[in-house]
């Protein structure tokens, strides 16, 4: 984000300040030079657009889900039903390193299913539109043991902020014991 914003924040106000207060007279920069800058600018914008969009494909959760499914690794299936203002979760305990497929549905209004890392960062979130034929679905592999908070991030009425739950992630040996 700052990679884009900082250069803009430096250049735009600088040019405005310079041509407003320091030297507001017409610039003697030739038309040819401006055209060259224009061309470079346009190509840079287009190149950045292409690079960012191609590069981000591999980071899409759908790509990761597809890759995990194609790898043949066993996936633990978990069904979640959201309703105002609670979740029904078929299994709340998972193992580190074992992929989990969350299939989440809402049965009344719009809800969210957002899983937070114990450090407070969001791992992933899903938006749930009631009536959708297919449940919102995602495969995720937990990498650390701990208590993972679940929150609804789609406003769903007067007790929206109270709609939360908890998942437990344990080391592989802990669950079997």
């Amino acid at each position, binding site marked *: *984000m700052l990679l*884009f*914003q900082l250069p803009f*924040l430096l*250049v*735009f106000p600088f*040019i*405005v300040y310079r*041509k*407003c*207060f320091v030297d*507001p*007279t*017409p*610039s003697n*920069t030739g038309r040819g030079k*401006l055209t060259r*800058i*224009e061309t470079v*600018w*346009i190509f840079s*914008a287009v190149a950045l*657009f292409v690079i*960012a*969009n191609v590069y*981000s*494909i591999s*980071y*899409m*959760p*759908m790509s990761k889900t597809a890759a995990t499914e194609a790898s043949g690794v066993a996936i633990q299936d978990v069904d979640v039903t959201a309703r105002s203002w609670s979740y029904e979760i078929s299994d709340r305990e998972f193992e580190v390193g074992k992929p989990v497929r969350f299939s989440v549905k809402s049965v*009344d*209004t*719009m809800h*969210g299913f*957002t899983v*937070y890392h114990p450090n407070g*960062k*969001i791992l*992933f*979130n*899903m*938006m*749930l*539109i009631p*009536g*959708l034929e*297919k449940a*919102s*679905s*995602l495969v995720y592999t937990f990498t650390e043991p701990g208590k993972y908070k679940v*929150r609804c*991030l789609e*406003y*769903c*009425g*007067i*007790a*929206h*902020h109270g709609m939360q739950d908890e998942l437990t992630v344990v080391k592989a040996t802990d669950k079997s014991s």
Partner: protein
Amino acid sequence: MLAATIRRTPLLGKMFEVDESTGLSDINTWPAMMIMTSFVWLVVAILLGVGMPVIQMAEMGSDLFYTAITLHGAALAFPFLFQFMMGISLHRSGGCMGKPASGKLTALIYICMNGGAVLLTLAVLGGLKITYTVMYPLPLVGAQMGAWSMNMVVLGFTGIALVLTSMIFLYPFQIIRMSFFGEQREELLLSARSLKDPGMLGMVMSIMILLVTGTPLMIVAGALLLALYGIVPLEAVTWASEPVVFQYVFYIFAHNLMEAMAIMVISAVYATLPLYLADGTRKLYSDKLANLALWILLVTSVTSFFHHFYTTNPGLPTALSYHGNIMSWGTGIGAAFSIFTILATIWKHGIKPEPGLMAILAGFVVYILDGVNAMVAANVAVSYQIHGTLWVGGHAMSVLIAMTLMWMGVLYHHYPVITGKKLDKVLGNRFVTLYTIGAVGLLYSFAAGGAMGMPRRFADWDAGGWMSVGVAILVFGLFLIAGFFTYMQSFFKSRAIS
């Protein structure tokens, strides 16, 4: 009579009293009325905006918070900003086309917008807490659960339908009428412009977007309203009452509404910037590049709305998610062209340090900073981590704040024509400084909150230790308020040009 109503309005009447000696009442009076009324709604939105962090800090209850957030969003987006934009654009359109911005259609625009907003306000005060995005089917589910009454749902939906009628049909019809039909009146023509001019092209593009993307929502909302009134049975409109249908037609419109307003204000920047060039050439660096930027924004914005639904996958197929990703980033190319056009124009010709132009340029800076935040959020991978957080709420709010600042700057330019009075430069510069600090501070506060996982529309900021973000929001919100009241002060202290 309308001019007299404005004149008699306490406090605001002194600021927006129309100069009737110029013979321009037909392009000045209704716009002045709309602008004046929009500021009343802004004051409401401001008080509620400050109220939200205060409610959280003082632990005044979640009910009050959700009431405040519903009214704040609704007041800020529609009866304030959209009405403010309508007032200025009707005046601009009248002056550029030599056509009156008055008549029954304009009166109807005003009545539907403000009448609808009042009905929605009453419904929210009566218990309906649905946020300005409606969150359908929440209104019906909430009534079934006893959180609010069905009467309030009917009242609220009636208000929303009136507001939407004003925005989607009446206002676009009026701009189309003024742009393409009717006799030109020489005495109203202030600065003749054609549709080749970026300033006019953007305006026509915007109203076409509203008309085309808004019509499906009007059909669905109209069907629902008929069922709510009991005129047709609810079973007869199941095609409209499906949540997924409503959500899609809603976001096709709501997303493009923001894009249309952005195209409209960028075109106003293109129209206003040349008037303040230091060398008096009154020309943009390149009209073609400016028009190309508008066309790119138009084409890419229409289907970029898919980014609202990435996280419903596979409800939204992966291919459409990626399409939304590409289109959302495509709007950045249009923005890059706009940045170049504006900077090249300034570099080539120099500019005069007028508060109105500074407000426009500061608003443009906030708009671009927010645009970057929006593009980041529109990346599919990132969206899975920040959708539903304060980042997204901050984007919606910052784009409104940025457009407000740009329109406030444009009003600086038109104010002397409407009222026959000139504005104080010192107060103008102070307003721009305070407002810009507030806008940029709020933008980064919201983004930081989102990056920390702080949910939007959430009545318990303490739950995740996010209250520090709430404090920052309050502090920068106060800067914004100080900026706005300085702006109003400059109108209050304006002096007759003669």
